[in-house]
């Protein structure tokens, strides 16, 4: 990408530089070269950002692009278009594709496809174990060399403590973070939602929040034991956030993410929507106390960033009885409007915090380029309009998946332009 772009008239908010000022941004050759007032650049394309917020490109560290193998649900092309439409300039792609991304060859294939068909940056995450079976470690060194930025068996927990310990130890050699989907399988067997009064009334088997917290505690202790780098995926429970908090206090290298749906929804929704399978995901929507706790943990910084766990599914996989439906909801196109409307507007976070949550912090988690607009940084920019109304209309999504619990919502605030490497990849 040899993009050259001049973004003018916007308010630049770059927490990594402690910057919040009306400045123009010049991107040349795909990298940020200058920030200043009333910049000129004769050969540059121009993007007018008057009245808008200009941020370092947003990064979503937890996305399922489904390619290779499940192209009926999503492809790298459609998934990255959805990312761009949602204001994201980069996504980390989880490895639970078919085949699982547990080898360098598959990583390279993903990157090749991303280069030719993708519209935003794709950072593959490699598997922890071969075929994510939870037994033998995958080749972390090869995976890293091929381009993986972290390892995870997401979709499943690493059930065996010994395997998780080895993974944390071995990953040290390559300075890779190990991302765990924390779930004690023996407690969540057959469950399709959170265990609690709602599951009782609906007659559905529930998975208790403790089932997640048990593995978070285990992983934090293991990371402490071996000095490893641990990242907890999609935290949904108060007790999980608490384990992360205490780990950080003790100096353990643990980080965590939370999804928008866990920040804003509870298991009551399953009852309200009378078994609508668009309310089904893993980890499930929890009770109000858990929701408030993870929201507070994000505000405090105990949870480092927001990641969507964007999980598109084909209509057939969701249009069945609740306990048979696939787990997962999409999120790339709704995350930013939701957070602007429900975190920023009510003042739960400041604008600077929000931008950091979506840019600087995710970049730091896995040492990704970007997260700032300092000269030399990639020319990735997200332009926000805090006043613009966005109606969640699943039929007009870029993603192939229509499975969102937010359909029909009218939100205030959205990304109106997305720039990757100086190229405008999305304009509202």
């Amino acid at each position: 990408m040899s993009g050259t772009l001049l973004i003018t008239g916007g308010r630049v908010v770059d927490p990594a530089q402690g910057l919040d000022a009306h400045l123009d941004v010049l991107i040349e050759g795909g990298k940020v070269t200058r920030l200043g007032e009333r910049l000129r650049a004769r050969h540059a394309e121009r993007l007018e950002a008057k009245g808008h917020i200009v941020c370092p490109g947003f990064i979503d560290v937890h996305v399922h692009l489904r390619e290779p193998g499940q192209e009926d649900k999503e492809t790298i092309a459609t998934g990255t278009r959805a990312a761009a439409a949602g204001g994201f300039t980069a996504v980390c792609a989880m490895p639970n594709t078919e085949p699982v991304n547990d080898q360098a060859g598959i990583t390279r294939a993903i990157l090749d496809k991303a280069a030719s068909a993708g519209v935003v940056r794709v950072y593959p995450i490699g598997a922890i174990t071969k075929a994510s079976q939870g037994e033998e470690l995958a080749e972390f060194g090869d995976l890293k060399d091929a381009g993986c930025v972290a390892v995870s068996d997401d979709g499943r927990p690493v059930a065996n403590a010994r395997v998780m310990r080895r993974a944390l130890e071995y990953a040290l050699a390559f300075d890779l973070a190990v991302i765990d989907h924390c779930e004690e399988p023996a407690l969540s067997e057959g469950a399709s939602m959170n265990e609690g009064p709602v599951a009782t009334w609906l007659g559905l088997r529930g998975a208790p929040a403790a089932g997640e917290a048990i593995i978070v505690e285990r992983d934090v202790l293991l990371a402490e034991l071996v000095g490893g780098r641990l990242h907890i995926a999609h935290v949904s429970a108060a007790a999980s956030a608490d384990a992360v908090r205490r780990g950080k206090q003790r100096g353990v290298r643990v980080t965590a993410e939370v999804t928008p749906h866990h920040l804003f929804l509870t298991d009551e929704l399953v009852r309200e929507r009378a078994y609508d399978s668009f309310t089904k995901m893993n980890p499930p929507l929890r009770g109000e106390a858990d929701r408030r706790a993870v929201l507070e943990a994000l505000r405090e910084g105990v949870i480092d960033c927001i990641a969507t766990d964007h999980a598109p599914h084909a209509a057939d996989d969701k249009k069945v009885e609740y306990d048979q439906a696939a787990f997962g909801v999409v999120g790339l196109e709704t995350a930013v409007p939701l957070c602007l409307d429900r975190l920023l507007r009510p003042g739960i976070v400041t604008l600077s915090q929000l931008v950091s949550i979506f840019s600087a912090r995710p970049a730091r988690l896995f040492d990704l380029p970007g997260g700032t607009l300092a000269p030399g940084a990639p020319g990735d920019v997200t332009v926000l309009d805090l006043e613009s109304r966005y109606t969640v209309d699943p039929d007009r999504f870029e993603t192939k998946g229509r499975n969102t619990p937010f359909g029909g919502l009218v939100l205030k605030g959205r990304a109106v332009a997305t720039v990757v490497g100086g190229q405008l990849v999305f304009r509202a």
Partner: protein
Amino acid sequence: MSLFPHRHLLGIEPLLPAEIETILDTAQSMREILDRPIKKVPTLRGKTVINLFYEPSTRTRSSFEVAERVLSADSLSIATATSSASKGETLLDTAWNLEAMKPDMIIIRHASSGAPHFLARHCRPAIVNAGDGAHEHPTQALLDALTLRQKKGRIAGLRVAIVGDLLHSRVARSNLWLLTKLGVDVILCAPPTLVPPGIEALAPVTHRIDEACEGADAVMMLRVQRERMTGGYFPSSREYHLRFGLTEARVRRARRDVVILHPGPMNRGVEISTEVADGPYSVILDQVTNGVAIRMAVLYLLLGGHSEVGA
């Protein structure tokens, strides 16, 4: 103004107490039809009802079939072996295929909670829930209530104990909704491993069956499935019977005119001792007759008196 302004009967939870009374009163009025020499009324002539049973059930299905035929509806029963999407047709495809035959109502029993709601969302006929997963079994609760009312002359103010596997029981949930809506004093009893979280919000829970039976007007026994033992919910049927089984001695703690209800079929020697099962307190045969009357009432209230709704 309709007495029963619902298109479907998916559960007891959404019903108002007055609506429940309407069903009971209608069933009581219609019960005498079953004593006539000619047990047929032309009310639902020309209406088609499909019984779609994904779980085996001779009892409930036959009861619906009799109710349908007494009301002169055309009745068709489909029993399928399994609901798993990987084997054969999905529920939705089956329902759409049936819908193409233009039935007026589909009565569904299914292992997945929410299956009737799923059908109601995607299909046009009226849907009646004949039991979905662990969620609800509304007609069972209604026939239990009718039986209670016949035996006791009233429902409000009664003291009723519900004993057994509360966790997996749809009958327990439906009864709990119905009885509390009609002003009954309910007490629940189960081993701690079989108490679903949050159920104390509707009624107190005890782990001592003697306490539950104390002064009870009626005791509702739930079936205990054998699989629960292997699932580690309690150690043995012997221990279950000792600690939670309904024996003569425990029945005697209840009121003299206590009534024992059971949704059937019974596990003699597990949740209920043989003497009690065959004893004078059992009203299981009344439950069966009332079951047909309730189902007639439900069919009438949902299908009788409406012209083709819009679409």
